[in-house]
């Protein structure tokens, strides 16, 4: 693995800032803001490391969402009404909003393009769309997976 610590810190710190910012927008309790920042740091650090190990955006996002959801589930074993707030806020910086915007921009470009350029525009749209769908599915699956695996016998739940 050849990863610059400065780049890792840059990505993780900005992920934390984005998660904490969205935590305020989502009206999280003030006491939880440091934990939300930490969740964003953990998610972006994991995703960056996974990408540096050769994983695609979808695979890296899955790994990061899964790590965050497992950490959140372990913490949830203590009596608390907070639910999966940390997991949700933590993965928000990984939701590929810019990729979604690019899909629509390239879709509009495809609709506006002349016949000679339409194949190129169609390929760009398709590329972005496939990456978007798989990344979203990866994040959602990673986030949901720990809650789909029961940790207690049915009669205790």
């Amino acid at each position, binding site marked *: 693995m050849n990863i610059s610590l400065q780049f890792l810190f*840059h*990505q993780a710190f*900005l*992920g934390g*800032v*984005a*998660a*904490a*910012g*969205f*935590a*305020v*927008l*989502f*009206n*999280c*309790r003030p006491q939880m803001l440091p934990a939300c920042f930490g969740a964003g740091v953990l998610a*972006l650090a994991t995703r960056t490391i996974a990408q540096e190990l050769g994983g695609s955006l979808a695979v890296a996002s899955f790994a990061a969402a899964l790590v965050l959801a497992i950490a959140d589930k372990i913490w949830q074993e203590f*009596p608390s*009404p*907070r*639910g999966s*707030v940390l997991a*949700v*806020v933590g*993965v*928000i*910086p990984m*939701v590929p*909003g*810019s990729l*979604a*915007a*690019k*899909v*629509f*921009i390239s*879709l*509009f470009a495809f609709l506006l393009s002349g016949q000679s350029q339409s194949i190129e525009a169609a390929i760009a749209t398709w590329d972005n769309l496939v990456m978007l769908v798989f990344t*979203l*599915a990866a*994040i*959602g*699956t990673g*986030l*949901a997976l720990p*809650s*789909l695996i029961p940790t207690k016998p049915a009669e205790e739940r």
Partner: protein
Amino acid sequence: MPQTDDPPLPDIARLCLSAGRQMLETGANGRTVHEGIADIARALGCDGAEVLCQHQAILVTLRRGPESCIEMTKTGEHGVNLRQTQAIRQIIRDLLAKKLDCPAAQSAADCVPTCTGAYPPWLVCLATGLACAAFGELLGADWAAFLPILAASAGGQWLRMILMRRGHNVFVVAGIISFLSAFVAGLGARLCGSTQDPIATIAAVLLLVPGVAVLNSQVDVLEGKPNLAAARSLRVLYLLTFMALGLVLAQALILPHL
């Protein structure tokens, strides 16, 4: 047979629907709503509770001995307010722990929208701006674009709160905010000497991406609630379409070379 001190089923159903509606409207997924309603019914002595949770309505059937009760409620616009979701979950925990009875829990649930604390609007706008500016840096924007993105998305959030409070259509609001935020961020980034003004325009509209709805629709489909997931996904698709329309219009005006 019902105990003499058991509350009437319609009262329990009303509490179940109040709690479920508030959880759905404040960003909870289908499972949280189902489990919350089932916990309330169990805490108040019901033998069983069936819940049908749709995007715009919740239907609940309660059974206790020979009695049964079916009630339905419509839900309002879905948003995200995690502190309110937690407040409702705390009420359910207090019910399970027998710290609250049905009338007290109903009063507490009715109070949640007005009694739950919130951040001042200026702080919400600043935090949203910071989050979008951080997104911009993650997407590869240079530091010259940081302040323009922050200002544009903070202003966009402020306008969004005003327009939503006035009851405007959520999709039209998304289009307007997207256009204005992208325009201000792109123009500001260029004036500040940034070479990444296309990234600045995209980063400034990311406050509109319905991330929680996207995640909830994924979780709902994985947990066997495809109707709710499909409705959420359709709304996400339309929101993104309006967001992209605003963004493309702004880019066409300030980035004609793209």
